[in-house]
């Protein structure tokens, strides 16, 4: 029996009186591409931040490779935040060196190739790039790691449709085999084809956690249609 790389057990998070996540439990197995779907405010970012160890749960637990978020889980988790987190005053090669310094699984050659494809000058400062380029660069760094779990928060967030293809291709080409990938997005149509399973959140609760093929077969709808159906106003 394969071991789950990721487990959430009764995970809850409250911000003051507001409940962002409510008793969420699920497991993710290696080798799976999981779409974390839900409208804005459904708890996607909170779930990923809890998993990355940037938030502490109000109740329940997260286990990554059997451990709660900490130094051990951070060495095997590659996390792409929903915002630009690279220091704007740093240069491209400074940031690459920083990743290489801190992450043992960082593939310098891979990263250099990807950044060269983006036509980035190693001495360019992050702050002088366009927002789209910054996001692509951040994704390249995230995907240059041979992690066991990738947590990608809205990788398609602020980029134009042309760049979406680039981003999805980068993810598909570079995640290490046997790793699990969690992609949060509300652009269901764009990611539908690449997902094994979907975890749909609604108001902080798991509405569905299913294999995408299964769900399509049962509902007779594409995942995108299903999503719209569930969340129609």
């Amino acid at each position, binding site marked *: 029996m394969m071991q789950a790389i990721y487990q959430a057990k009764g995970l809850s998070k409250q911000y003051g009186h507001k409940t962002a996540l409510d008793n969420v439990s699920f497991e993710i197995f290696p080798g799976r591409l999981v779409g974390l779907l839900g409208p804005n405010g459904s708890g996607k970012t909170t779930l990923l931040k809890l998993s*990355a160890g*940037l*938030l502490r749960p109000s109740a329940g637990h997260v286990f990554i490779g059997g451990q709660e978020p900490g*130094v051990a889980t*951070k060495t095997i988790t590659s996390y792409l*935040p929903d915002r630009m*987190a690279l220091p704007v005053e740093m240069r491209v090669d400074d940031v690459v060196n*920083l990743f290489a*310094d801190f992450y043992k699984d960082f593939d310098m050659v891979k990263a250099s190739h990807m950044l060269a494809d983006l036509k980035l000058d190693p001495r360019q400062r992050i702050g002088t790039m366009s927002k789209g380029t910054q996001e692509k660069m951040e994704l390249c760094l995230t995907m240059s790691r041979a992690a066991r779990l990738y947590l990608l928060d809205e990788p398609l967030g602020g980029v134009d449709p042309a760049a979406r293809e680039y981003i999805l291709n980068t993810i598909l080409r570079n995640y290490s085999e046997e790793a699990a990938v969690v992609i949060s997005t509300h652009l269901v149509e764009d990611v539908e084809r690449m997902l094994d399973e979907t975890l749909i959140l609604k108001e902080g609760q798991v509405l569905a956690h299913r294999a995408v093929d299964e769900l399509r077969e049962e509902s007779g709808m594409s995942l995108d249609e299903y999503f719209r159906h569930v969340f129609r106003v």
Partner: protein
Amino acid sequence: MMNKLLKYECIAVGRILVPIWVGTAVLSLLVAVTERMNQSFDSLVGTPVIAMVASFLQVLTALFVAASLVVAFVVNIQRFYKLLGEQGYLMFSLPAAPWQHMAAKLLCACGSTVASFLVIMGCMGLYITDTDSMVREPVKIQLALENLGITVFLVLILVLLMVGMYLYLYLCIAIGSRWPQQRLLASIVTYFVLGFAAQMVFIVLMVVGGIIIGNLPQGALDSINQFLLQLSFTTPGSLWPVGGAVVLLLFVLADGILWAVTQYLISKKLNLP
């Protein structure tokens, strides 16, 4: 891990501080040169231009001296504030424990503050001439062998005060980040509230202490007096080291408490906005 964190911290802080240090040094050198030129020319002919340049440079140098302290302080506080904000998304994703981030930031903060002091002192040494015995003498006395004990004590107290000051501000920021929407405001309010609370506690302790001492039976007071007197008679000067050690210990204790609470907050209660 600590080494790497410290390295990146120093680079980030150095980027801002080093230019200011260099500026201070260059200006001080210019001041020293113009000062000497002024003195040697003065006896021959009046040189108002050189005098004007000299005083302008002096003002500028004073500004840089002030800046190297203020900026060192502000930058280091800002680094910790940013750690619990946007920058935390990168830093707390690194496989390092929260206390290591804090330790790296604190070490860098103290190191760069001390470095700023040393740069300023070095620069002053440049244009303080032999005639300025007013400055030289006290320094000489302070560094004299027989006063080494007290000097070391004072330096230690200053260092512990500096550590405490940074840790206190870290704590305020850590508490302030419990309100992610108004982090800055919450940190500032915490600064004043905690400061006020600490004063209150101190006053209460003083009052309680006073009451206890006031209510002690005469016999107990006498024996304490007796003990202290005896101590100072039998081994003259031994009260100083003992008292000094107690004071240092209290400072270390205070710093330790600040550290422990802040570390607890950023590891067990971390909530990035």
